């Protein structure tokens, strides 16, 4: 009899707590951005397609579906690290076939331009203006430096100029932190010899 009571009580309790937890899960559900949005927010939006997808958003979707996180050269190592943090994956070096790229801007040598409009069609962010048979130009502020306009140009008149930002207006105070971020991160407290 006692055993039965115990079993019944436990079952009741389990049911009660289960219901409580279930209710709490529904009632206090944390709304968050869908994972694709969060990934897309980390990607640099150059829309360069070096990852093999036609733009940042498709790559974000691909990552959410399990693709590698190290295929975005404009995002660089920092981008890979941010993605790794977000997704709880291991950060890995950039894909070897891709090189980390510096920010660049496209510039058309205007006297050589024949006005073929091919680059205009290639630009993912509509940063090139011009009409057929007329000279084209790049709106520098809108250009993401994706390189996509370079191959279609039949007269090779587009240069990718690295953005140096090496002037007083872009100058920043240096990071005084020459030490590691935390004593745990880059230095073992109990020294361990790294073999290999």
């Amino acid at each position, binding site marked *: 009899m006692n055993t039965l009571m115990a079993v019944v009580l436990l079952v009741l309790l389990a049911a009660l707590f289960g219901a409580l937890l279930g209710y709490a899960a529904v009632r206090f559900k944390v709304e968050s951005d869908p994972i694709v949005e969060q990934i897309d927010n980390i990607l640099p939006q150059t829309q360069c397609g070096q990852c093999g997808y036609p733009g940042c958003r498709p790559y974000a979707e691909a990552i959410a579906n399990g693709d590698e996180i190290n295929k975005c050269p404009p995002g660089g190592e920092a981008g890979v690290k941010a993605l790794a943090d977000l997704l709880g994956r291991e950060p890995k070096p950039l894909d070897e076939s891709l090189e980390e790229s510096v920010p660049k801007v496209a510039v058309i040598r205007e006297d050589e331009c024949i006005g073929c409009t091919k680059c205009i069609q290639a630009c993912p962010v509509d940063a090139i203006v011009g009409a057929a048979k007329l000279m084209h130009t790049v709106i520098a502020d809108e250009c993401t430096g994706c390189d996509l306009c370079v191959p279609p140009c039949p007269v090779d008149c587009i240069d990718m100029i690295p953005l140096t930002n090496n002037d007083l207006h872009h100058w920043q*105070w*240096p990071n*005084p932190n*020459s030490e590691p971020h*935390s*004593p*745990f991160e880059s*230095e073992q*407290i*109990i*020294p361990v010899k790294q073999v290999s």
Partner: protein
Amino acid sequence: MLKSSPFNQASNSVTQLMLQVILATLPGALIMFYFFGWGVLFNLLTCSLVAMASEAAILKLRGRDFKSGLSDYSALVTGILIGLALPPLAPWWVAVIGTFFAITFAKHVYGGLGYNPFNPAMVGYVLLLISFPVAMTSWLPPQNIATNAVNFLDSLNLFLFEIDSQGNKLNFYLQNADGFTMATPLDELKTGLSMGFTTAELQDKLILTGWVNQGWQWVNIAFLVGGLYLLTRKVIHWYIPVGMLGAIFLTSGLLTWIDPDLHISPMTHLFSGATMLGAFFIATDPVSAATTPKGRIIFGAGIGFLVVIIRNFGGYPDAVAFAVLLLNMAAPLIDHFTQPKVYGTRDA
């Protein structure tokens, strides 16, 4: 590297702060030496040496510059605090184990100076108290009222070999005028209370046997003096000591008011055990304490409250170490909830 302003530094340094703390422990240490004899000195010496040696060894292991690491004297402060907290004539290995553990595990495993969440000295002390309860609660009676005072040579023998030249063990020296073995007044009160005596009776007995107004009171007064020195030199702030002593006074006052027979009076609380040492030297360790002004008052008050609760209801006679460690754990939370109001948000 490019250096930005200010190009100006107040002439203070961690080393100076630590040296002032060490200086401020002197009155207390001297009074303890006067009442409890050579054992105090042996403890202080051993703990200081072991602290510096462990610090140097670990810094070397960690590949840090151990000369500059030692010169901040933070390890020395830890060593001295443990030395002051140990019972005189506890065997040498007690001091060694406690100090080594404090420096190695409580300090450096967490990242060294500035990174330890717990007060290293108290971690070492608590480790000893739990591991060697007998050695850690065998306090000598003040030498001026002790039946068997202990001289330098016997002290040394007891400290090193746990037996003196006549073959007496430490117990021999622990007996008081009545021939009974006694612990600290707090211990005595606690045992008495649990045996059904009232505090009044116990106080009488303590006064008769010369415990009250002797020894411990003077030790506490000496640490209070050292603490006041630290306050005037602005090495510490009033927040933590006032919070802690105030809370001890209020909590014990309330308990005494509820039932004076069963609870130790506020004044006894304030001037016995490690109260003053704790309030001015241990709880004020900035690394492991709360940092906001309000937070520090709360931090101190929490320690004071727990000290009284543990002393009155807990299993150990003194409670400063446990209270400090418990509040160390709470410090980040306290800080989080006591952020000061930034300029411009004070009033509408």
